């Protein structure tokens, strides 16, 4: 009889397919050239000329990608006045492309088994204090009943560990379960309409199967692009220890037909300047080689984890000011790409991020396994260090976040229409670049926000949200008269309890 350990080892030995790395490489070289990046950073002017910076900002404002050299110039801007101009441009770009909408979602961890041993992570295989669990279909249904039926989420990022218990078959089955739950609400019904997947790298064949299950975006973060640091954080002999298997995952995903992919860095593992340049190289490589750049970029920042090997005085931890600069530069470097800031960050940082071009935020987040249905106050206020990958910095409920955003003039969108209407991959990128997607988004944002207010909003949220909806409708009347009839028809039907109407 095979032991569980033997099964896991044989599963691990079948995972990495070398030919699915080598075929994308350029004469055996990957697209992150450490020496070149370090040189570009070293050669960038130490005190950039304001004229040069303004030329770069004008290019961003014209919704054109920046080159790595231009990014290196922005990294060196320290003058407060120039930084203010960068902030102003980033916000104007965000408003030009995404208007005043923030898309919301919830993270949903389905398991915390993991075969890897990343130094910075509370779930690493060496951590004997972590309580391990994988959710069963019934447990998933219970969690979704809370997420879609009590909180009111429509969009998830579902997180899977790298382990045979969380393999492709499990992913596909869990996606089916998530999509199948429909819950009665105050005035209609709730369900999850878009599931984005954060999972380990897979081979093309597995990615095809995952795609067939109807996912939203597929996310894999490189964590650090710096090879030496990568090797230090991810021990050799583990699956994650293979830098290139992870680096080329999005090439394989796009080849497998998943045309919305999300990349990211765990800022704080290595010098943020290097990581930022690498993110730009990564999305540009995808665009150049496969015709579609990153749909979203995430930038989690390293925070303490139980039994983590990262010391408190680690030299690359990113302070608040640099973190804000990172967000600004990403917005300017890839003006139309979605930017996600999660509840890892404190509420004050996230509120500021809204004014720097962020497009997506989570809320009412719980990251301990099974914690949405497993006790209310417990999971939010007392975080479970032995059951979560990291500690949350912003524990605001969705209702609170929506009110705060409304006070800042932002409408919370639950729209999931794009990927159900063929606005994916190259199409969505072109629509965003040309500013056309905004026309659909505005309509769908108002419709879904109205749904949420009617089904889940507190008295205060409705008071804050309804005037915002009136303002949006007035704008639609003025700027999009062609769509007005159908929009008003959908809006009226939503008010009477119909759900999931979209354009």
């Amino acid at each position: 009889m095979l032991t569980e350990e033997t099964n896991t080892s044989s599963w691990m030995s079948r995972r990495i397919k070398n030919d699915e790395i080598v075929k994308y490489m350029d004469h055996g070289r990957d697209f992150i050239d450490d020496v070149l990046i370090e040189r570009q950073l070293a050669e960038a002017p130490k005190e950039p000329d304001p004229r040069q910076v303004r030329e770069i900002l004008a290019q961003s404002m014209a919704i054109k990608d920046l080159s790595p050299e231009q990014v290196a110039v922005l990294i060196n801007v320290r003058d407060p006045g120039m930084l203010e101009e960068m902030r102003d441009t980033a916000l104007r770009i965000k408003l030009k492309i995404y208007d005043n909408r923030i898309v919301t979602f919830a993270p949903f961890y389905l398991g915390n088994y993991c075969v890897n041993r990343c130094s910075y992570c509370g779930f690493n295989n060496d951590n004997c204090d972590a309580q391990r669990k994988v959710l069963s279909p019934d447990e998933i249904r219970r969690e979704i009943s809370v997420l879609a039926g009590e909180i009111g989420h429509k969009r998830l990022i579902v997180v899977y560990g790298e382990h045979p218990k969380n393999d492709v078959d499990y992913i596909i089955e869990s996606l089916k379960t998530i999509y199948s739950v429909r819950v009665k609400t105050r005035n209609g019904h709730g369900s999850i309409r878009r599931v984005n997947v954060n999972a380990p790298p897979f081979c093309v064949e597995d990615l095809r199967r995952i795609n067939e299950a109807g996912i939203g975006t597929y996310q894999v973060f490189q964590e650090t692009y710096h090879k030496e640091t990568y090797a230090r954080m991810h021990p050799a002999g583990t699956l994650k220890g293979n830098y290139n298997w992870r680096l080329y995952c999005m090439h394989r995903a796009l080849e497998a037909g998943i045309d919305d992919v999300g990349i990211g860095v765990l800022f704080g593992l290595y010098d943020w300047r290097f990581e930022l340049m690498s993110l730009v190289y990564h999305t540009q490589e995808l665009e150049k080689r496969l015709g579609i750049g990153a749909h979203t970029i995430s930038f989690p920042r390293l925070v303490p984890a139980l039994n983590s090997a990262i010391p408190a005085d680690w030299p690359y931890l990113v302070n608040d000011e640099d973190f804000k600069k990172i967000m600004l530069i990403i917005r300017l470097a890839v003006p139309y790409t979605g930017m996600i800031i999660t509840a890892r960050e404190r509420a004050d940082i996230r509120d500021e991020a809204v004014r720097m071009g962020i497009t997506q935020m989570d809320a009412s987040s719980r990251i301990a396994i099974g914690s949405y249905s497993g006790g209310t106050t417990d999971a939010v206020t007392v975080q479970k260090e032995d059951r979560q990958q990291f500690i949350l910095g912003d524990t605001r409920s969705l209702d609170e976040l929506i009110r705060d955003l409304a006070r800042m003039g932002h409408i919370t969108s639950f729209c999931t229409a794009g990927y159900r209407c063929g606005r994916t991959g190259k199409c969505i990128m072109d629509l965003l670049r040309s500013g056309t997607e905004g026309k659909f988004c505005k309509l769908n944002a108002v419709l879904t926000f109205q749904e949420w207010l009617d089904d889940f909003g507190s008295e205060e949220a409705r008071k804050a949200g309804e005037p915002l909806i009136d303002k949006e409708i007035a704008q639609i009347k003025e700027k999009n008269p062609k769509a007005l009839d159908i929009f008003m028809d959908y809006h009226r039907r939503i008010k009477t309890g119909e759900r999931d109407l979209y354009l």
Partner: protein
Amino acid sequence: MPDGEGGYVNVNMMQAFEQLESMLESETGGPVHLVRIAGQRWSYAAGRLPLEESFDAPQRVILSPEWALLFYPGNGSDIDREQIRELFEKHAGKGDA
């Protein structure tokens, strides 16, 4: 030709779409996209980009469990979906089946 389950066999959908795209556009007065269906997901496969000024509600014609067309009517024209489907089937069926 459609197979027994409404899918297409031995037919290159992209090729068929490319041949029909301009004709479909003139019928509907706006861009037409071919999309691939995977569960809830409708992935863009082909068709004129960007959509510039068109923002009428897209109309859908499902060709098979795997493929569909999306029309962005330019003049509010009402599309005869059945006619479009038949047209596409006829043309796609003439491919290399």
